[in-house]
């Protein structure tokens, strides 16, 4: 309903391409022995998820994803890997392999069942007035303005708490690494 591009076959094809790339990259992160290669695969996962955000009409979040995750977090992780010497030896899996695999499989099964069984109150099926319909299109096409408004009105307390959290993290990280 927003734009109507979701109906086209090329949207489906691109979605499957991005989904498969993201899942393969995530599997590489989990299974590769060399941590530097795993971090590279992690960047691939982040970029794939940014692509998914674009397909969800969340372009602002996609930009934030690329800046914060693919840019900052992955660089931080690679620095961490480089500061620690024994990464060439790799990272073997421990003895929890089979229980962890079973847990993951059961989780995917349960979530799939619940998702398919739920009656979602879909936006596409909702009966809206023409003004609300226009507002929906406007909100999704102009998302940075709407998100900014929400952050400074409904979510101003969490916003300030996030600022406090980041300050405390910065101070805490420096205090931890600085030593005595």
């Amino acid at each position, binding site marked *: 309903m927003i734009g109507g591009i*979701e109906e086209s076959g090329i949207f489906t094809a691109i*979605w499957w391409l991005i*989904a498969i790339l*993201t*899942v393969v990259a*995530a599997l590489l*992160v*989990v299974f590769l022995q060399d*941590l530097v290669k795993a971090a590279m695969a*992690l960047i691939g*996962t982040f970029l794939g*998820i940014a692509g998914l955000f674009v397909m*969800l*009409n*969340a372009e602002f*979040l996609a930009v934030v*994803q690329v800046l*914060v*995750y693919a840019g*900052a*977090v992955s660089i*931080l*992780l690679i620095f*961490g*890997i480089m*500061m*620690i010497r*024994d990464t060439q030896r790799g*990272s073997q*899996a*421990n003895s*929890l392999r089979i229980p*962890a695999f079973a847990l*993951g499989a059961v*989780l*995917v099964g349960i*979530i799939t069942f619940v*998702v*398919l069984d739920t009656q*979602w*109150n*879909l*936006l*596409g099926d*909702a009966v809206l007035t023409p003004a*609300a319909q226009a*507002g929906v299109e406007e909100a*999704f096409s102009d*998302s940075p303005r*709407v*998100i900014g408004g*929400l*952050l400074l009105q*409904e*979510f101003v307390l969490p916003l300030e708490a*996030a600022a406090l*959290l*980041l300050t405390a993290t910065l101070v805490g990280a*420096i205090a931890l*690494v600085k030593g005595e």
Partner: protein
Amino acid sequence: MIGLEHFLILSAVLFAIGLYGSLTRRNAIAVLMSIEILFNAVNVAVVGVARYTTPFGLTADNVDLLLTGQVFALFIVTVAAAEVALGLAIVITMYRNLGSVEVGEANTMSH
């Protein structure tokens, strides 16, 4: 046609992969990377629900609330960035004190 279910099940698959990684990896930095996959999987689910579903009684006045899910995702990104910075600081301290970053060897609070 791609719908909400596709995004939610993809998110569940990514979450399971991250869960498997964070349970089986021995290296603490690899565990941190798996936890990042968990955060991202949750973000896909939250933004997907924000995009495809609607609250009851949506009118032209409160249509901005549709993007609440994206605001939640922004806060999750903030917390994840703080988590990875502090996690790496802990890992580096652990490497200094124990000479290793295997999570199984961190079995004491002092040194």
